[in-house]
């Protein structure tokens, strides 16, 4: 086990290195640079060179990479070429929004998926099962940005129950904050819910077929206790694992959802960085998101190995 953990951690190092390389290389391919965007129509060679020199963009690319990497290792992702703000500060400012969005989406997905999945498994082959499975496929098929637009049309425009965009900070106005978060969390969470419904159903079916549950039933265990406690608890492990895998979807999907709802999170930050050709910032976002994703997956894998010691540590 310890060997497994050590091996996984060691393997993560070249991947992290790779992420930084991909981020750096991709961003260098983007046509136009911060200097051209900052100066726009007032661009002249001399002033462009001046800005590039200030930002170190006049160095050879490998040198730029080495400098950037050595700073990144000490936790300094550089300064946004556009606003002059340190990238880490921009990330720190934006992270709470994305975290709140993602966790609200997960919460919504769990609340929806666990009962539906369980209901489907218990009533296998009957209408609740078909309903749950239809939601399970449909939820994966609806584009989240379209869902967002429809939600705005219905709840914000027509009914006026929720604001149609913008963000209010949690500590500033908790009620207002929740109102701005409900629709985007639903739009983002539906696809996760769909996956979880299917997982929950499958794993519940697995559990229901197992020996100890039949024993419990034979011993006269009531259905509530039987399904609600014994089966549910055991069916949860694969659901949580799959949830870990969904983090990638949540991080990617938040780019689109934050753009639809105007939420100032990491996703919108990435789009702004692309729009402003803000090399340093875009690099920072990709590296940050990639690292976070990698670490979360690693944690999930390790937890999974810990819960299920019999799996093969490939």
């Amino acid at each position: 086990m310890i060997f497994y953990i050590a091996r996984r951690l060691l393997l993560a190092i070249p991947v992290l290195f790779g992420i930084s390389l991909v981020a750096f290389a991709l961003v260098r391919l983007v046509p136009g640079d911060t200097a051209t965007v900052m100066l726009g129509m007032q661009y002249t060679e001399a002033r462009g060179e001046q800005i590039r020199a200030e930002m170190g963009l006049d160095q050879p690319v490998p040198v730029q990479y080495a400098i950037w990497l050595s700073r990144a290792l000490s936790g300094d992702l550089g300064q946004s070429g556009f606003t002059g703000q340190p990238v880490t500060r921009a990330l720190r400012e934006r992270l709470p929004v994305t975290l709140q969005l993602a966790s609200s989406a997960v919460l919504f997905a769990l609340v929806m998926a666990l009962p539906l999945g369980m209901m489907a498994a218990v009533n296998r082959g009957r209408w609740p099962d078909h309903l749950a499975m239809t939601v399970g496929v449909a939820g994966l098929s609806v584009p989240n940005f379209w869902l967002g637009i429809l939600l705005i049309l219905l709840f914000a425009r027509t009914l006026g129950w929720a604001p149609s965009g913008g963000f209010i900070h949690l500590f500033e106005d908790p009620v207002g904050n929740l109102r701005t978060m409900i629709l985007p969390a639903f739009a983002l969470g539906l696809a996760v819910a769909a996956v979880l419904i299917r997982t929950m159903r499958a794993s519940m079916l697995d559990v229901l077929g197992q020996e100890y549950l039949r024993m419990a039933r034979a011993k006269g265990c009531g259905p509530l206790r039987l399904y609600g406690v014994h089966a549910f608890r055991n069916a949860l492990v694969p659901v949580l694992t799959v949830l870990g895998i969904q983090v990638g979807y949540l991080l990617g999907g938040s780019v689109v959802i934050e753009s639809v709802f105007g939420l100032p999170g990491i996703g919108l930050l990435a789009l702004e960085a692309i729009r402003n050709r803000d090399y340093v910032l875009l690099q920072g976002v990709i590296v940050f998101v990639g690292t976070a994703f990698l670490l979360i997956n690693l944690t999930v894998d390790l937890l999974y190995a810990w819960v299920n010691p019999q799996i093969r540590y490939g």
Partner: protein
Amino acid sequence: MVDSFRHAGQPLCPHPSAVAGLVVLSLLGLLALFAPVIAPYDPFALSGNAMLAPPGPDHWLGADQLGRDLLSRLLYGARISFHVAVLSVGFALGIGTLAGGIAGYVGGWIDQVVSRCVDVLFSIPDILLALAIMAALGPTLNHLVLAIGIVYTPIFARIARGAVLDLRHADYIEAARSIGSSPAAILYRHVLPGILGPLVVQTTLSFAFAILTEAALSFLGLGVEPDQPSWGILLNQGKDLMERAWWIAVFPGLAITLTVFCFNLVGDGLRDALDPRVRAEKRA
């Protein structure tokens, strides 16, 4: 394992939803293919009179702000969606399977390199990676195919590698090796059929994701050229007109949802038929 694909035809039949999905998809494919014949209007033809015309006898699904027929635009949009999906998934399937298959079969440092590359690509969320690639290349149809193709390559590489690793030590392959079959022959005759099942399932599901990703990127303005009637672009144009013309935002979304839904149904059916061990796994 080898047999599983041969039975593909039979087990699909008990899946009426998968069959229905396949039928609808074929229909959509035909509509897309014959869009120039079927479409009632030129999808680019402007009309001052038809500006924001609601659904009616002249324009079944209404018209957009520039008076262009929405149905015709949706039909042409289907061509873009299918074009991008087929080519990008084809790219991912080809490159991914090749890289993964070789890595699994050869092993050693090649395997290490391929696996780490796959890990790296996996560690950047799909949409973000595709966005960054599109920003680097610029929004055109071909670049979009490439970007989505790159994003979905690692999943195929991983499947192919895993399947090849499983098969490498299977008895019948050992046997083929011992009677002196060349590695190419072994790959083609024995390994390929063995990994076909999971690949077919993944390909079908990837079509669904590719269509969604194409729409999302075009919606964000980093997909196809802005004057193309891609479903994502239609949605983007509809979003600002929702109140006056709900149809522009609603029908393209329905089209995407229906197509993706059908691909998902077929994919699920195929998975149950070909690969019963795999249940709801990575879907992102």
